[in-house]
């Protein structure tokens, strides 16, 4: 493999004194984040009347963002931990990106559900008076657990690189950063026993994060699935959400790899072969996602109650949600199948572009899960205002959405300044293969 001769020194210039462009980029991102904070402050001052949420659509773009970012997070965790456990060597260069997707989207996504609360000052009651039967309580427990685990896992994967950075005498970074590298590397010197314990810690965390991620995202789906509302009360929602999350996370991983490949000149690490393998994974996920989507729609459509029939009519009516449904189906199912399945279309750039379309399409899908259903209750509120029945996001919600995206990018940019975006120490171990720990008792010959 072309990455076997990797050296941490290759990445040193990227970690040392930032350029003016870097500061400009950071400044722009901070401005967007601050604008989002301003919008949030206005929401606290004025209340939720300045959002598009009303009596009928009590959730909107915030909840769509929450589900979307949580999905990205779980997908990142699933990908990085599975690759770690199975010792898939060709995937090692992009594992750090997957881990950063996990942590950054968790940090960005989790607060979005809090923005939906009318009385955020009573958030402590959720912990004081929380009922273990409530899917909301499950979700709070699962997300906070997952956040701790994923941050720990991200840290574990950095320890050996921190040790390498610590050991570079002429590294031109601030003294406090060098000191921090020394503290965070835990005195790792590559001794066999240290390596063994680090691998064990790594594997344990990877093994526990996979079920945690699946459980947490299933719980998130049950927030919807356990509500008696048209379009939500479905047994398929748990696995459907997990599949959708994995699909969107894989697509975002490809997009970010493509960005680093282009901007960071990392073609040697994010190779054509990796894009090719991931593209096959993507088309497989497209097929599974298409199958799940079809299953969801066909079962709901066959059992049409009055409210369900109204919901379906809205979803495929171009004057209502038909346009968004069209974008979802074309971006997330049709175009990926055509572009990736036909070799003539399949290039690194086209795969990355299609991945971007998938990310957009799957965000739209989350919006279509949340809003049309809330606008179509089984028992409509009587004598309510027409403008309160239909949801459209306000500038506050849009500002916070873009702010969330900016914060996620900001986390990536700063993280890439702290340690190489490619896990150097991991990639050095390419020769390592899976080591079965179970003893098999052989019988017969």
């Amino acid at each position, binding site marked *: 493999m072309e990455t076997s001769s990797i050296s941490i020194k290759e990445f040193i210039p990227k970690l040392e004194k930032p350029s003016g462009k870097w500061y400009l980029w950071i400044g722009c991102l901070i401005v967007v984040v601050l604008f989002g904070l301003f919008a949030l402050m206005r929401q606290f001052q004025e209340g939720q009347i300045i959002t598009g949420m009303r009596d009928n659509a009590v959730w909107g773009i915030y909840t769509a963002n929450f589900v979307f970012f949580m999905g990205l997070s779980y997908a990142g965790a699933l990908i990085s931990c599975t690759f770690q456990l199975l010792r898939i060597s060709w995937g090692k260069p992009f594992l750090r990106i997957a881990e950063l997707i996990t942590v950054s989207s968790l940090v960005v996504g989790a607060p979005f559900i809090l923005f939906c609360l009318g009385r955020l000052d009573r958030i402590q009651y959720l912990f004081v008076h929380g009922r273990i039967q409530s899917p909301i309580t499950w979700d709070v*427990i699962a997300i906070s657990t997952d956040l*701790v685990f994923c941050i720990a896992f991200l840290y*574990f994967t950095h320890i050996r690189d921190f040790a390498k950075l610590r050991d570079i005498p002429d590294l031109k970074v601030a003294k406090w950063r060098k000191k921090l590298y020394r503290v965070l590397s*835990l*005195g*790792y010197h590559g001794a066999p*026993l240290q390596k063994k314990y*680090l691998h064990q810690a790594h594997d344990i965390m990877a093994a*526990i994060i996979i079920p945690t991620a699946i459980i947490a995202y299933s719980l998130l789906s049950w927030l919807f699935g356990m509500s008696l509302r048209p379009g939500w009360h479905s047994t398929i929602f748990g696995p459907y959400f997990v599949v959708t999350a994995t699909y969107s996370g894989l697509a975002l991983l490809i997009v970010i790899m493509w960005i680093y490949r282009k901007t960071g000149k990392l073609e040697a690490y994010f190779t054509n072969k990796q894009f090719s393998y991931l593209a096959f994974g993507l088309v497989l996920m497209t097929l599974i996602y298409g199958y799940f989507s079809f299953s969801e729609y066909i079962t709901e459509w066959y059992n049409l109650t009055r409210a369900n029939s109204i919901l379906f009519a809205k979803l495929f009516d171009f004057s209502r949600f038909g346009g968004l449904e069209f974008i979802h189906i074309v971006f997330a199912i049709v175009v990926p199948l055509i572009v990736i399945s036909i070799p003539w279309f399949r290039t690194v750039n086209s795969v990355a572009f299609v991945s971007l379309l998938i990310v957009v399409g799957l965000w739209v899908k989350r919006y279509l899960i949340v809003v049309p259903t809330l606008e179509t209750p089984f028992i409509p509120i009587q004598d309510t205002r027409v403008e309160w029945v239909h949801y459209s996001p306000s500038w506050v919600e849009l500002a916070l959405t873009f702010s969330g995206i900016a914060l996620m990018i900001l986390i990536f940019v700063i993280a890439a300044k702290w340690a190489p975006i490619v896990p150097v120490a991991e990639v050095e171990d390419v020769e390592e293969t899976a080591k079965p720990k179970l003893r098999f008792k052989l019988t017969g010959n």
Partner: protein
Amino acid sequence: MGIIKINLLNIRLVVAIIMIGMTGLCFRANGQTEKERTRIKLYFSKLPDGVKKITAGLIAGKGKDMHPVANVEIQFTASAGDSTVVLASIPTDGDGMSILNIESGYVFPTDDEGKTLIEASYKGNDQYRKSSNDVEVADLSFEISFETEDSIKYIYVSAHQVMPDGEKIPVEELDITIGVTRLFSILPIGEIETDENGVAKLEFPNDIPGDSIGAVTAVARIEDHDDYGTVAQQGKINWGIPVSYALKPLPRKLWTDEAPLWMIFSVFIILTGAWYHFFLSIYKLNKIRKIKEEYA
């Protein structure tokens, strides 16, 4: 010529009809539409605490479809002989109701027979015609008492009309409904008629549930009577069956305060398993640090 005369006459007639019609249309076009007629429904009640409640409901409409008129003033007056007292002017609410409560100590002007004419009037406006309604009532007082005779429980009700000089005259042949209060309404338990002394009695049933000590509130009531309006009096007695309304502890269910045990155990096991592995990995990391110290 005769034919011509007739035709001219016809033409004049047609022109006159058209002019009248046009005039009518012009009036309508100027917004001078016909006012809606109004009607007041008036009720008088005397509550158990002696408060007199006068309720007026104003409705309006052109045909059979009448609708309540909100936010207009209704004036209440009480009169007897030459004496008239304006009681109050109260605006109608969203249901067209205007309610006046008068304290128990207030004395209405009365005639020699102890009767007062209560009137509610609406003076009208650009949209609605004026209207009024009145009801003549006398002051009736109930007294309610409870007695047991030969182990049989009786409710006694005496009805008297209060005269201007304070004299109480028994009211005979008055139909009174007796009931006991329940959570949302009054449960009727019988009807009685007063004798020449203004007294009536009713055997109290033995199967009426009461509160935790068996207390029930009995209500004697006449409704919308021609001479007295609606009058009610009540009394409390421990003649009911004691019933404990303390909530029984609910079983563990999804919708109760306490979760099902299987759910608590499942969450506990999952969280314990997850966090055990987390601390196990931290323990392994700690070993790395110790090896470093040994290395040094």
